[in-house]
């Protein structure tokens, strides 16, 4: 098997061009999705059936179906309805970029909600009681007691989610956009050199993954200052 290292270097600049879109998609949908996930997890643990069930259902559906399907439903599915096409929404939905943002954010929210729930379970019950005994309101308890500890416990899994999303954004190549994978696939189909081209893509992804892993590590240290080691 002949591996042409030159092809790797040749294709790298073109692939890096796709990086801008990847990062843009990642940051926007991560922000929106995480915000939504906080709402979801609060509903999920609220103990109020009217809130628990919708949240549960949402998480179930979005974790239960592939992200590809969700993307296609937003992109192709909605476009099939005449009224969608005639509404103002079409300004956004016409654009693959916004379809991707919508689908990814909704998806990330479901997964992150579960991750946060795991972290929240790790917060000792005695601490809730201490907060209550001090007269803190529920939202204050959540913000100042539960959240800082739960965040520390969730961070490693949240790092996973960021990296998954990074890789997941590759699906946009199916709806006519050129991210890292989109560019790579284009070159592969033309040159018929999957190893070399995917290795270049891997180099770009690895750099981003490494950055994310570092960033999460720093955040963990920040949130875990109090832990005795």
């Amino acid at each position, binding site marked *: 098997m002949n591996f042409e290292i030159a092809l790797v270097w040749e294709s790298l600049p073109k692939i890096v061009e796709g990086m801008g879109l990847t990062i843009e998609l990642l940051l926007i949908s991560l922000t929106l999705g995480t915000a939504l996930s906080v709402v979801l997890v609060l509903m999920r643990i609220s103990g109020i059936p009217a809130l628990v069930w919708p949240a549960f259902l949402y998480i179930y559906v979005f974790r239960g179906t592939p992200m590809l399907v969700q993307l296609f439903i937003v992109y192709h599915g909605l476009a099939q309805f005449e009224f969608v096409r005639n509404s103002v929404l079409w300004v956004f939905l016409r654009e693959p970029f916004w379809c991707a943002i919508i689908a990814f954010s909704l998806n990330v929210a479901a997964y992150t909600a579960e991750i946060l729930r795991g972290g929240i379970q790790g917060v000792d019950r005695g601490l809730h009681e*201490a907060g209550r*005994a*001090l*007269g803190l309101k529920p939202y*204050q308890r959540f913000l100042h007691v539960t959240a800082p500890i739960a965040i520390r416990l969730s961070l490693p899994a949240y790092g996973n989610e960021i990296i998954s999303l990074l890789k997941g954004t590759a699906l946009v190549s199916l709806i006519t956009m050129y991210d890292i994978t989109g560019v790579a696939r284009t070159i592969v189909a033309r040159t018929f050199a999957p190893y070399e081209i995917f290795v270049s893509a891997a180099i770009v992804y690895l750099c981003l993954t490494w950055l994310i892993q570092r960033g999460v590590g720093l955040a963990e240290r920040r949130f875990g200052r109090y832990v*005795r080691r």
Partner: protein
Amino acid sequence: MTDPARPIILLDRVTKSFGAFQALKGVSLEIARGQKVVVCGPSGSGKSTMIRCINRLEEHNGGRIVVDGIELTASIKDIDAVRREVGMVFQQFNLFPHLTAVENLMLAPRLVRKMPRREARELAMHYLERVHIPEQADKYPSQLSGGQQQRVAIARSLCMKPQIMLFDEPTSALDPEMIKEVLDVMGELAAEGMTMIVVTHEMGFARSVADLVIFMDKGEIVEQGPPATFFANPRNERTKTFLGQILTH
């Protein structure tokens, strides 16, 4: 604002079960504003359970509990208002691990009393000094010794200057010197008119400070009375043997 004659804490035939096990079997108690009550009794007799019911960390199953004129019921909305006025020191301390000692003290004054940061810090340092650990202010709980943790826990609830304080064995992790110091602080608070319920076996404190001593056994209050009569002539057999242990010991 409130009728001084009305009891600030009223327990009326309160029961509490954990599954099949009944931890409180009809406890009745009236505590007037400013009273100091010492609760003692063997391990597992329901002392912690009782004071946890008073600020509704545990929901009682039967009977009534009224705190400062507000009855604690399942539908209660104003539980936070009650809790603002009821401080508690836990047997297990329950310090916030992610906050330093001084931050543990500052949290509630800042959030509940809306105190500015600087003022809250001064207040916190004041109480840390009173329990002799100002130099530990910036350590996290995991870096403190057992006794230091307990003192932070005490100082934390004092910072809120609540009308009612519930202490659950507040001196268990302390050495005799420090016990004296802490009891002195509590004595001062008592003198300032704070209502207190203290689970403790420090009978010296009970003698000098308490208005009322309660002895619990197996989920019931088996004997109560002012310290003079309580220690001098306990009527109940169980109380007698228990006090016998303390005094000979």
